[in-house]
């Protein structure tokens, strides 16, 4: 059997190494050109220090044969349960990722090394805990010289955080269309004047943007700067960046979703706890390792999955709900549940060079179990998606499905229909079951006490072809 190395999307820019998968395991190749930097990382005590602090992903040197002549070593990092991207993070997730990057930079300098970049994509989340994953980002610091990653830090972290804090949390989606972070001149144009009153933003964003523009077409010799910034100055700049980031807070904007469960639902306390019981029962029947909770709000039902030990992704379209959920999980130190911002009517696409740098939501699946609770009416009625299309979409995301049908008698659906014509004659239990049975086998049906709602446990039918595994979309090395 031929074992194929599949080079993974976002790592081609780097010269220090690359990431590939083999036999469904992820490896990182350390290149010969990066040898002295990697050796210092490992021998100086920096690696151990970062591992002890749980800031850097643990790796082991894999006894694999070098796949090419550039290779110095092949290392096998611990696996990240789910790869997420900055445009899917709530404010505090991006902020924690920024602070972690600066803390790692400071630690690296203390050991005579520096980060050669400051990409937000170098940070991933294990549950609600950020961790740095790019082992080949560390470089020997010659003792003097500015930080090459400074511009990238401002674009990947500072600019989106400032925009979210001063304008609107939804501006984080600009990171989806600007893969190398938000251009500083764009951030400077979008930010209100009052942002200039903060010294940190005035310097690192506004002045930075102006200097970039002024020097864009001028030739400046790099080596002139090699000795102009010393370690003390760098520590000063890091402290200034950290202070600026820490002072930013998410706006206290209220959304319709964050208090969803408070007096807004079609449940009283007993039907709410009945719903929880049914979901727990279905989860035990499905016994999933990975759960995707679609429309998770603040994670009330995602908790049921993570309490059973499943790695759970709590997706919601609402930034505020994800923010609340992240802070709650972060305080509790959860390593199983990851809340993410996701608009299911337009899920994260594949982006970047050749559409292969960052994967689409589907390419990061499938999950074992998909939960879609109090969601179907938003997709079918607010977004006009036929029930059959919803069933097809869900069947590509997971093997089992726990879904709640919310009929027209429910006040939430009535609210959605109050301002528009009812063009959904098939939106009823029979129509729902018929549409879903094309893709799923219904295994269990339990109505929620004292409500019109019904919960289903379904299993994907095998006859509907293979799931979309992401390997199909990657380059063979």
């Amino acid at each position, binding site marked *: 059997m031929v074992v194929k190395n599949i080079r993974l999307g976002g790592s081609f820019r780097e010269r220090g190494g690359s990431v590939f998968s083999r036999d469904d395991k992820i490896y990182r190749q350390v290149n010969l050109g990066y040898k002295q930097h990697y050796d210092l990382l490992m021998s100086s005590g920096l690696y151990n220090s970062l591992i002890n602090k749980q800031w850097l992903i643990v790796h082991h040197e894999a006894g694999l044969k070098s796949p090419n002549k550039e290779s110095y070593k092949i290392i096998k990092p611990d696996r990240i349960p789910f790869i997420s991207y900055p445009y899917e993070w709530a404010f505090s997730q991006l902020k924690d990722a920024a602070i972690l990057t600066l803390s790692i930079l400071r630690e690296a300098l203390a050991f005579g090394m520096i980060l050669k970049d400051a990409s937000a994509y170098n940070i991933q989340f294990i549950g609600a805990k950020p961790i740095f994953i790019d082992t080949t980002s560390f470089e020997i610091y*010659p003792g003097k010289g500015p930080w090459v990653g400074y*511009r990238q830090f401002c674009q990947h972290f500072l600019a989106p955080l400032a925009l979210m804090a001063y304008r609107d949390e939804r501006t984080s989606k600009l990171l989806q269309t600007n893969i190398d972070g938000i251009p500083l001149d764009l951030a400077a144009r979008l930010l209100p004047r009052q942002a200039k009153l903060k010294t940190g933003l005035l310097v690192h964003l506004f002045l*930075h943007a102006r200097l970039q523009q002024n020097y864009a077409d001028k030739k400046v010799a790099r*080596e002139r700067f090699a000795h102009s910034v010393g370690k003390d100055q760098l520590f000063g700049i890091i402290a*200034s960046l950290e202070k600026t980031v820490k002072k930013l807070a998410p706006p206290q904007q209220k959304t319709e979703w964050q208090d969803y469960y408070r007096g807004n639902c079609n449940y009283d306390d007993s039907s709410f706890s009945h719903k929880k019981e049914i979901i727990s029962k279905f989860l035990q029947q499905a016994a999933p390792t990975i759960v995707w909770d679609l429309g998770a709000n603040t994670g009330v039902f995602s908790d049921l999955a993570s309490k059973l030990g499943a790695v759970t992704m709590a997706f919601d379209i609402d930034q505020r709900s994800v923010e609340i959920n992240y802070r709650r999980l972060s305080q509790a130190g959860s390593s199983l549940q990851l809340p993410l911002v996701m608009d299911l009517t337009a899920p994260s696409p594949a982006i970047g060079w050749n559409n292969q740098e960052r994967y689409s939501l589907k390419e990061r699946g499938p999950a074992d179990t998909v939960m879609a609770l109090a969601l179907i009416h938003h997709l079918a009625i607010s977004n006009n998606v036929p029930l059959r299309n919803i069933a097809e979409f869900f069947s590509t995301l997971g093997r089992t499905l726990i879904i709640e049908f919310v009929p027209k008698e429910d006040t939430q659906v009535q609210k959605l229909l109050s301002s528009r014509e009812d063009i959904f004659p098939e939106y009823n239990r029979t129509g729902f079951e018929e549409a879903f049975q094309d893709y799923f086998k219904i295994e269990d049906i339990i109505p929620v006490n004292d409500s019109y709602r019904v919960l289903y446990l379904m299993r994907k039918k095998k006859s509907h072809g293979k799931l979309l595994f992401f390997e199909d979309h990657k380059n063979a090395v």
Partner: protein
Amino acid sequence: MKKIIAMCSLGIITLAAVPSALAYLDPGSGSMILQVLIGGLAAMGIVLKTQWVKLKSFFKKPKE
């Protein structure tokens, strides 16, 4: 000619001193200049802060 050779070798030495072989990022001229401009002040900020903390702890009553 000697001058040119001397200048070229100086250039090579200077370039060799900067570890750029792996540097895949363009740091950006404006971003480098800004670090030069603010580095001194920022470093001074740290020194002042350290002194301030020391001063404060000097006047603070020792805990019994």
